[in-house]
């Protein structure tokens, strides 16, 4: 089989996704035997012009992590699309918007003002925010434009495969590396490299479930959770029931609830709605004995509803912030 040509790129992301690839250990060292990496600015000395110089569709697979927030990220995403026959959205930011996507709760100016003026760590008496073009001493400096909202990769370009995770688990990455040949060969591989069933299906705590409601909910720091029992049934908001499995149950194994980085389940259209719908049903009990306004108190543990149900997915939600 001919060697697979790969391009890696990153957008609005923390860098963890690139690290995660290096993190799989031996498998990465074996890569050069089967693939040619033609572009990977984070790990190797490549510049954008190297990408531009490639012929259209000359690269087999482009693996892109990060969401799209700036004009530069948008341009590069389009470049990758032009140069690569297949594009993989790698990591929750590229797939669903990720943590950077939470910025979509706010308008562009609100964000810039907060970051450059209001934040207590700033000293910015002139109250200048970042500019795309600024003139100084006869020079004109340009920066990529800060676009009005964060978008997922597939809101900008066509994406062939999705590899969710914040970052993707070693097992998922290994699966990706093992299927590169198949993807390049145009064979049918899964469009989304994650389980089709929710995390509960494979969670080691699943078998402890008693099908009981949680009369009280706790924020993670309020309770030292039992290490064996279902976290949700202990009253901890674990989103495993509404999130694809395949992550290797990393968080729940560390006694932390699932926050949803593997994304929404196949037959749903909104990433947070199902979790909300289910949580509202299983949280709280014996409401008949409470004054009516108290039936909501159980949800006090959900301090930030957007941050709870759309931690990794706000840009892919059906609800979009109304912009003026």
């Amino acid at each position: 089989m001919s060697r697979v040509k790969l391009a890696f790129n990153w957008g609005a992301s923390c860098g963890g996704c690139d690290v995660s690839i290096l993190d799989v250990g031996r498998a990465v060292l074996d890569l050069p035997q089967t693939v040619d990496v033609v572009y990977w600015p984070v790990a190797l000395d490549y510049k954008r012009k190297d990408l531009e110089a490639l012929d259209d569709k000359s690269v087999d697979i482009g693996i892109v992590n990060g969401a799209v927030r700036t004009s530069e990220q948008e341009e590069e995403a389009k470049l990758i699309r032009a140069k690569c026959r297949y594009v993989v959205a790698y990591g929750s930011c590229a797939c669903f918007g990720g943590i950077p996507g939470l910025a979509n709760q706010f308008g562009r100016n609100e964000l810039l003002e907060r970051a450059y003026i209001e934040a207590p760590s700033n000293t910015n008496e002139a109250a200048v925010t970042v500019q795309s073009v600024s003139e100084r001493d006869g020079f004109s400096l340009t920066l990529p434009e800060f676009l009005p909202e964060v978008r997922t990769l597939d809101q900008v370009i066509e994406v062939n495969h999705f590899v969710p995770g914040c970052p993707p688990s070693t097992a998922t990455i290994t699966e990706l590396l093992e299927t590169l040949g198949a993807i390049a060969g145009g064979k049918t591989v899964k469009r989304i490299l994650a389980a089709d069933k929710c995390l509960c299906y494979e969670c080691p705590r699943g078998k402890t479930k008693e099908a009981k409601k949680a009369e009280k909910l706790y924020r993670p720091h309020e309770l030292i959770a039992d290490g064996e029992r279902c976290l949700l049934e202990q009253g901890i908001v674990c989103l495993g029931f509404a999130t694809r499995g395949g992550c290797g149950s990393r968080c729940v194994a560390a006694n932390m609830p699932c926050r949803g980085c593997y994304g929404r389940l196949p037959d749903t259209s909104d990433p947070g709605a199902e979790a909300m719908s289910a949580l509202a049903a299983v949280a709280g009990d014996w409401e008949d004995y409470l004054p009516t306004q108290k039936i909501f108190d159980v949800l006090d543990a959900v301090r930030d509803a957007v941050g709870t149900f759309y931690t990794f997915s706000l840009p892919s939600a059906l609800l979009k912030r109304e912009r003026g």
Partner: protein
Amino acid sequence: MKTKDSARPRIGVVICTCGGQIAEKVNTRAVEKKAAALEYVVHVAQVGDLCKKESLSRFKREFEGCDRILFAGCSERSSLTFTEDRISALLGEMGMDRAMFEVANLREQCVWVHDGDLTGKAMDLVRMAHAKLKSNVPTPAPTRIIKKSLVIGGGPAGVQAAVDLANAGTEVTLVEKKAYLGGHFCRIPYLVQCEGWPSMCVSDCVAPVQAREAIFNPLVRTLTGSEVTDLVRDNGNFKVKINRGALLVDPDKCISCGKCAEVCPEEYDSEYDSGLTKRKAVDKDYRLGIPDHYVIRKDVCSECGECVPVCPTGAINLAAEAEAVEDSFGAVILATGFKTFDVNTLTALNYASPNVVSSMEMERLLAARLRRPGTGPVERVAFALCSGSRVKDKINPEGMPYCSKTCCGFAVKQANRITAMNPNAEVSMVYFGDIRTYGRAFEQFYSQAKESVDFINGEITAVEDGEEGLLVRLETPDGAEEQLETDLLVLAEALLPGGSELIDLLKIKTDRYHYPLELQPRILRPTESYIDRVYVAGALTGPKLVQQSVEQGSVAALKALNHVIKGQKDLPKFTSEVDPDKCSHCRICETVCPHGAISMAESGAAVDRAFCQGCGLCVSACPSHAVQLRNFYEEQILEQVEAAFSEAENGGPKILGLLCYWCSYASADLMGLNGHKITNTNFRSIRIRCSSSVNTGLILEIFKRGVDGIIIAGCPPKNCHHGAGNYMTARRVMLLNTIMRQLGLDGRLKWEFIGVPMWRELADAVHKMDKTLKALGPSPLRRKT
């Protein structure tokens, strides 16, 4: 979506003008014309009075060739003449499936609530009904119900249920834990007869009379000394395992001569007699017990074998073993009675003292004419009412907050018996604030007691054993400390439901005190538990007189008979369906199902349709979107939404009411009935199942289709027909609204608790939303295509 049989639907549309009322504001001819052009419509007609006999028979002939009917006229929920049940029956008579109709509510929710020309709205309502009707699927085939009932608990309630079921010609298995029938009933020597008549029956007379009716009826299989060990739902029926205790004494041979007991060396306290007398390991401590035979208590028997040779009929076989009985039933009546509050926890009352007794011990003492073993007849007796009931005080924090209702009455009955047996007895009664001898009989016993009994209002703080009997210290309401001396203190203890393990096994919905809840509207459904064909009768549902327990046994039997005589259950048109490929086995649906219809199988969640009540709680809760409600498929709702505002140009913002099947939809109907008008003619409603039948994802999809605002309404607190559906949705809407607020999309979604008569509140909610939406402008949530 699941689709019907391949044949093209043949829809008949019948528009009833309701004697011209609808035609006053709706151009029904225009509606008729447009309806005729809708997909699959093969026939349209207009009538003036469809609910009347003559029109109906004409209708039946005219629409014979159709396989589904769209009725445009009055409300299927609130009409007094043409309700959904009647339409279903009519369809049945015409050979159509019961699920194959939809109603466009042109009267209550159109011409009665708005002024002006309503032809556009009427047509939209017809379109909505049509959008759903065209994809309705047939009602599932009936489930076979086994023609046998299981009654658990052989107290007066259970025995009566068994007798009534058998007298109606059906088979019953009656399982009783104890060796004899009669429950608490046969241990109470003098029984207040009923609520209205201040006279007594004696259990020595009536208990065996009731029990023999059961035992000698060939249709009743009585299993005493037996317990239900497993009870699972199985294809619409109940699969049961019963542990039939070892018959060490063969009932078919034993003649109750008592020779065995004479030689048995092992002696212990009689449970029947509350320890007042002793019994042997082989004995019959309730002499009038039915079935009439001796029993050996295995836990006390030392297997010395003395009794075996003396038995003249060779009835004793010490090697006999317990038998596992397995059977299936179509109905279950739970009549496991009451248990008493554990008075040991009330330390101030000193139940550890031999001179402090429970109320049942007092009953046995009355049977013994007040003679206690070792001491002379009792001379001084005090009663402590509310022992473990109505607790909210500092002294005895243990107990139940409710009033056990019958204890005051039973205590005055006992007090009167004491003075009747020993006119010199000194009797006093310490009560908590008030005496609650309700009804004609109890109150008369109370009046009578007042002549001889010293009633003291107060709270007992300590009970001490002294030389001269007991010293009872108490505090009166004004804080004064008092004390009284007595030989015996009787605790009128709180009553609790019995049979907890079975309630848990069946997953019956209960109140906080573990009393099973009856189904809503419980006012019309005594004894019906939340689980189909599981009935709860007698003291299990709350403290009662024997007569009331018997009454409930009969009611439960009658309800069970409806099913076991027919031998089949017609399923509702709405039932839950799980797609095993999508199910992730998370068990959320099982957690929320109030009717115990879901269990987990190898392939995931499995719904037993015969128990499903189509509430849709599972649908809205399933995070995998693996559950759908038959004939309430999400696609159907979305198609209705898409059709809903076709002619909604000038009426105002587009508001959709998702109104629960019983309360809120009826409330919208009553708005019209009461002549209350709403100005926004672009208010449309969908009669959803429980308010918790739509999930959050669906709400977002509805917004995507261009609705400006949504009002979801469900039953008022404590009134949801499916337990907690209203609270679930209230919380869902709260969460979604928080998110919408965070995203600057506030004001388009509202939850309301709306009971049937709360139509003013509903109208108000519509008006308010109308105002808000006018200020906000058209929804930005509309799908941009």
